């Protein structure tokens, strides 16, 4: 086992670092969070630069326009990007992380040639239409209906938690094509252009006031049958094929952000006076910092284990679920500590006194995104109990 870079990883790191230094400096200031046209063009500009430098689709196979980098190189790229304060994937998330890899694995040649390049250059933005108001943890119960009418599917229903829908060109969507089949069978995976008639996008504001999410109301939307990815009624398997692409880097961006917030919290504790002394001088605060710091270091090591396993071909069952639950727990614990350190400064979601106070309150709220999104903590615990530990199903 090793933690040091191999010779080739070390030269890749130097190359990436040198490129990032120039590229980041050439970017304009980022747009405001609710400025969706601004965010879209900013993210596209950065993605275009990555594309031209050969870093777009870093973990995609080279034959599909990616770089074909190893999982370790991917991790190095993310580490260096964070260190250089480079823009993150932004509105490109669904396209690059999910829709693109799905089309690579299951799409037709026409779908590949039409969609992959646009995702890599940043020209096309994707959103995800999987969850529904009645189908959250039990996603396979989804009811958005698509019936075949000539060369089209006619889609009716409602989707929720659709990130970046306002800015998106395409939606990767799960629909029920066979209502006589319950659950996993009878679901299909469709590419839905967002400019079709009958799509109503309504923003859904989150607990931290972000307009990231939307609801989609679908009324007689005619999606061409040519946009079916994989076979009809085989969409559940198609939706899960991206799991096999996971090489342990899925949460690296979040973990980098959390590590930065943690350092800011420590600085805050050292500079905040309370009862005639700094908050840092409080043993109970400092020891809590130590425990969270140990957990963050452990989560980095966990990530490196997963990346190392990913480089061997694929993750071990449960390692993604286990990481996510542990990360959510630490994120909540960090948020709780932040509120203790801030005390009355936690009354504002905006930063106070030139300090990142509002950002720390946001980090506590964001912890729920980790413990709820992508399968709640409790669903992950069920997965581990049944598929890793082999405990019997409840029913």
């Amino acid at each position, binding site marked *: *086992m*090793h*933690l*040091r*870079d*191999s010779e080739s*990883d070390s030269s890749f790191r130097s190359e990436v670092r040198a490129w990032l230094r120039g590229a980041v400096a050439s970017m304009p200031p980022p747009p405001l969070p609710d400025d969706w046209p601004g965010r879209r063009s900013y993210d596209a500009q950065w993605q275009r630069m990555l594309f031209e430098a050969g870093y777009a689709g870093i973990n995609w196979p080279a034959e599909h326009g990616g770089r074909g980098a190893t999982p*370790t190189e991917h*991790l190095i790229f993310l580490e260096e990007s964070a260190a250089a304060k480079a823009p993150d994937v932004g509105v490109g998330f669904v396209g690059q992380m999910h829709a693109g890899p799905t089309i690579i694995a299951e799409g037709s040649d026409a779908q590949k040639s039409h969609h992959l390049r646009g995702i890599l250059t940043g020209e096309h933005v994707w959103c995800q239409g999987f969850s529904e108001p009645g189908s959250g943890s039990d996603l396979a119960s989804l009811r958005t209906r698509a019936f075949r009418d000539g060369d089209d599917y006619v889609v009716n229903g409602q989707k929720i938690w659709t990130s970046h829908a306002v800015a998106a060109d395409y939606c990767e969507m799960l629909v029920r094509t066979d209502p006589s089949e319950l659950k996993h069978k009878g679901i299909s995976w469709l590419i839905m252009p967002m400019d079709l008639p009958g799509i109503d996008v309504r923003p859904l504001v989150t607990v931290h006031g972000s307009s990231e999410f939307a609801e989609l109301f679908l009324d007689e939307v005619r999606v061409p049958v040519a946009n079916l990815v994989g076979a009809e009624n085989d969409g559940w398997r198609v939706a899960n094929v991206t799991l096999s692409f996971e090489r342990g880097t899925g949460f690296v961006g979040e973990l980098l952000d959390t590590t930065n917030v*943690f*350092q800011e919290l*420590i600085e805050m504790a*050292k500079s905040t006076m309370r009862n005639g002394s700094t908050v*840092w001088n409080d043993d109970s605060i*400092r*020891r*809590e*910092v*130590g*425990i969270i*710091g*140990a*957990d963050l*270091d*452990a*989560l*980095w*090591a*966990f990530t*490196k*284990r997963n*990346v*190392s*396993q990913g*480089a*061997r071909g694929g993750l071990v069952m*449960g*390692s993604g679920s*286990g*990481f996510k*639950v*542990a990360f959510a727990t630490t994120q909540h614990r960090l948020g709780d500590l932040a509120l203790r350190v801030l005390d009355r400064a936690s009354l504002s979601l905006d930063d106070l006194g030139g300090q990142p106070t509002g950002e720390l309150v946001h980090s506590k709220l964001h912890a729920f995104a980790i413990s709820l999104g992508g399968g709640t903590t*409790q669903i*992950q*615990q*069920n997965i*581990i*109990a*049944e598929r*890793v*530990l*082999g*405990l*019997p*199903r*409840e029913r």
Partner: protein
Amino acid sequence: MDLQPTDDQASLVEMITGFAAHRFAIDTVRSFGEPEGFDRSLWAELAALGTFGIAVPEDRGGVGLNFIDAVLVHEALGAALVPGPLVAATLASGVIDGVIEGSVVPCIIDVGADGPLAVENFRSSDVLLIVDDAGVGLLNCEDALGTDVAHPTDPTTPVTILTNLPKADKIGGPELAKSWRQRGSLLSSAQLSGNSSGSTTLAVEYAKGREQFGRPIGSFQGLKHLLADSWIRTEVARSSVWAAGVTVDEPEVGSIDRAVAGARLTSARAATENAKTCVQVHGGMGFTWEVDAHLFLKRAWILETQFGSIDDAAEVVADLYATR
């Protein structure tokens, strides 16, 4: 970077795990706590596998592997609750003659902390290693006076309270003391990580077999979530223990002190919490002497005090983050 065991490392762990299952079955582990229960020939068998000298250079009689390999070995030993002064023997191998072969049995005390001069496995040891800030000292056990505890908290780990500690022969200075404290702490944490895995396996097997309300209790979500949390705590602990082991071998990748202290925090939490879960999952039987759940819990309590407290470890991590 590669933080998964190589094929050779996986074989090493398999070998130790297989030996422990065969030669240190739980009845044997329990017998080590009996008066005169320490089996010197079994100890020598364990030593003959290269267990203690795994990271000692070959020219000093060891196997010549890295410290991370010793960490993996201790994880496997901890999972099986293998008794005896495993950490002392590993630290002293290649330093004190006879330890690497198992013919000389060492025990160790870190007198840096306040509290009673309690030494584990003193009564069956030949030599006592004494660690303080100034260095490491060596004493024949017969030259020190002590009283054996009648009822040690962990029934498989005999404890002696020393009443007289004569002057020891100095075998190393502050550098050796520092190194032994780091390594001793990390080897103990590796055993804690293994312990957390062993108690989880025991609890999961029980939950699959035990039926109430007409079905296995492991089918109930209340237990599933407890046991999934145990598994997760082990994976987190194992991650930091392995990273710390590699950091000892490759000090340029980070602070050894921070990695070792962090490994203690995550592994102690995993071992103590998982053992508590193991007792709880066993229901009333978990509250009995005959079920093995309490052996994991009590061993975990002993291990988490080795070479510094949990609070010390938290302070170390916090300070090293703050001064970065």
